């Protein structure tokens, strides 16, 4: 079987903000760039980011990049790499201006400067008064950034492969990554995209959980592809949950509802937050409220016939207040639950929101793997940026407004580094190892070679089961027993995956086949997440162990690394910034 080959300087896998920012940098430098995306590029999940992008412009409150850096280190519960965090916070103001110059219509103040809104976790003067650091294009910042980047890429002649699904990375005999085997969804035909450099920018893996805020495309394909290529995944136990997602569906109900006086009740009608946070009650931080909701349900005090959700009450606020101050939330609830919060409480459950972990990289976006004695090697030719990567600027918990910043800063940084690499490797490596292609093709063929057996397993059925297991056993409520049970269940699902077969083996737009590949990816990532969470015997940021409620800097101030096959390793946190003194761990109090 002869597979067609297309050759480029750089292959970018994923067309969200991170991939497109890198592609633009490269295309403007006249590199020959291919972007592969499984959906039309402007339907990438970046479009869903409403909040904004942090940068210490000091347009609304006094501010500087060093305060932003402090907030990011503290918000990440001191697990973030401080060299990368310094780099990101220093670059932020310039990148906001750059985005504006390519067409992002940031909201303005009356004096003409860019408007900035305050977000949680932002402070002046290293933990002092609230700062206002988030630049926004109304409530469509992600949409505005994604569309501007896409249009600029079209102008710069980036080559788009829309609706192509990446199967596996390919490499030469020295281990240098030389592109990927991809599948054209429309025709079902494979294609080798050979490139001197490859950038993974495939976003997060929120679809690991039944209740999540992520688009259904977020199946962590790039992370799983890296794992299959022998690269470990870093800090996968850190998954950010938002306390109030619509139960059973996942969409966010903003904190604004509790800010306006809404409160949570359990199945006994009790305002239980008073027990968990006597002062802040329903306005306690996200992790505290998420944990309280999960505990109430876990201990049998949930609502409904299955006692599997909590109620968010707002009806006492009155119709006028709800109509005037919470119109968007009311629209959302009426559209998705077909109830009016003026009359009825909203069923909620903590919802998985953001993958802090991912493919380990340095601040240039180069993928790194551990060597002996704590040193690191780069994987030649391979880069990763955005939610699929772990650079690590978010540490154990991401701050609002830092994810859009992450993708544009490191998308650009990776683009710049690749430009230098291409200059130094003008002719590149040209010989892809046959065994690498054979392995990728075998992976591609696997689903078509399976014939119907006695099993009734289906892709949909197993995926739903996996997501339910992750909700129950690797969500907010984590203990040794819960996680161990979860690991056993995910391992069984991994075995049962071998019994799943496809009913339809046609090639043309066989979306069931694509979903089977996505399920494989999710199973690998579920194992990485549960195993890393089981091993980390402390509570830090988004990872809350009920049986180890304290942060333990002596034993656990280190990054986890999970390898396919189940081995775990660890590497130190980079506590030394580029030019300033590092921030030492201290209690994270707000």
């Amino acid at each position, binding site marked *: 079987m002869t597979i067609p080959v297309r050759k480029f300087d750089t292959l970018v896998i994923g067309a969200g903000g991170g991939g497109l920012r890198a592609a633009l940098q490269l295309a403007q430098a006249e590199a020959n760039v291919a972007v592969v995306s499984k*959906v039309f590029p*402007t*339907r*990438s*999940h*970046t*479009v*869903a980011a409403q909040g904004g992008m942090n940068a210490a412009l000091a347009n609304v409150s006094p501010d500087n990049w060093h305060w932003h850096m402090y907030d990011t280190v503290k918000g990440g519960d001191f697990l973030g790499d401080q060299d990368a965090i310094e780099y990101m916070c220093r670059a932020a103001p310039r990148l906001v201006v750059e985005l504006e110059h390519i067409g992002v219509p940031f909201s303005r103040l009356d004096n003409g400067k860019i408007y900035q809104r305050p977000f949680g976790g932002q402070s002046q003067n290293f933990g002092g008064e609230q700062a206002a650091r988030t630049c926004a294009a109304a409530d*469509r910042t992600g*949409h505005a950034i*994604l*569309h501007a980047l896409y249009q600029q890429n079209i102008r710069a002649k980036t080559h788009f492969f829309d*609706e192509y699904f990446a199967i596996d990375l390919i490499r030469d005999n020295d281990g240098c990554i030389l592109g990927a085997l991809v599948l054209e*969804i*429309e025709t079902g035909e494979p294609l080798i995209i050979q490139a001197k450099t490859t950038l993974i920018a495939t976003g997060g893996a929120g679809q690991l959980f039944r209740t*999540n*805020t*992520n*688009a*259904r*495309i977020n199946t962590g394909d790039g992370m799983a592809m890296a794992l299959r290529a022998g690269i470990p995944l870093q800090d996968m136990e850190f998954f950010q949950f938002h306390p109030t997602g619509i139960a059973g*569906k*996942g*969409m966010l109900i903003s904190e604004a509802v509790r800010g306006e006086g809404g409160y949570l009740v359990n199945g006994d009608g009790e305002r239980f937050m008073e027990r968990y946070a006597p002062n802040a009650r329903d306005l306690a931080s996200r992790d505290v409220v998420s944990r309280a909701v999960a505990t109430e349900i876990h201990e049998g005090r949930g609502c409904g016939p299955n006692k599997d959700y909590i109620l968010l009450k707002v009806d006492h606020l009155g119709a006028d207040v709800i109509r005037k101050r919470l119109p*968007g939330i009311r*629209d*959302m609830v*009426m*559209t*998705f639950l*077909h109830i009016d919060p003026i009359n009825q409480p909203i069923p909620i459950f903590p919802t998985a929101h953001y993958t802090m972990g991912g493919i380990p990289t340095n601040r240039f976006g180069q993928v790194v793997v551990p060597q002996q004695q704590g040193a690191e090697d780069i994987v030649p030719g391979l880069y990763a940026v955005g939610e699929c990567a772990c650079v690590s600027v978010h540490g154990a918990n991401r701050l609002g407004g830092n994810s859009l910043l992450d993708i544009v800063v490191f998308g650009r940084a990776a683009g710049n580094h690749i430009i230098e690499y291409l200059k130094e490797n003008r002719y590149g490596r040209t010989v892809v190892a046959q065994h690498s292609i054979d392995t990728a093709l075998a992976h591609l063929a696997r689903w078509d070679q399976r014939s119907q057996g006695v099993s009734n397993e289906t892709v949909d059925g197993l995926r739903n089961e996996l997501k339910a297991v992750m909700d129950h056993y690797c969500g907010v409520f984590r203990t040794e027993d819960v996680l161990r049970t979860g690991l056993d269940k995910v391992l069984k699902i991994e075995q049962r995956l071998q019994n799943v077969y496809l009913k339809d083996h046609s090639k*043309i*737009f*066989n*979306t069931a086949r694509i979903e089977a590949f996505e399920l494989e990816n999710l199973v690998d990532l579920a194992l990485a997440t549960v195993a890393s969470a089981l091993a980390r015997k402390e509570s830090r940021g988004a990872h809350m162990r009920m049986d180890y409620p304290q942060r333990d800097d002596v034993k656990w101030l280190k990054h986890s690394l999970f390898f396919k096959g189940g081995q775990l390793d660890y590497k130190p946190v980079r506590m030394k910034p580029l030019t300033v003194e590092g921030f030492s761990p201290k209690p994270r109090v707000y």
Partner: protein
Amino acid sequence: MSLRAAFSARESTGEILFESESMLDRPRLYWQCRRGMLELDILLQGFLDAKFDVLTTVEQHAFIELLDYPDAILLEYMLGRMIPTDQRIANVVTQIRTPVAS
């Protein structure tokens, strides 16, 4: 070629394309309903599964046109914050927003 363009091209030749042919394009439509936001995934894929087959040809065409809109605009339509000016599109949006009888 976008879905809309494909349908228009076939329409211009006078080809009758609905009923059986729309079914042939069903997987393609399903993939077009995969968007950048969970809210849109749920509403559009749910509508495709539950109601697309019983739509009139005009309504099916309007749904396909709707899928070419940017996600941010679609969300405004779906949450009822904006109403499409094209009455055919507005009608299909109303149907998507109407709960399926259980």
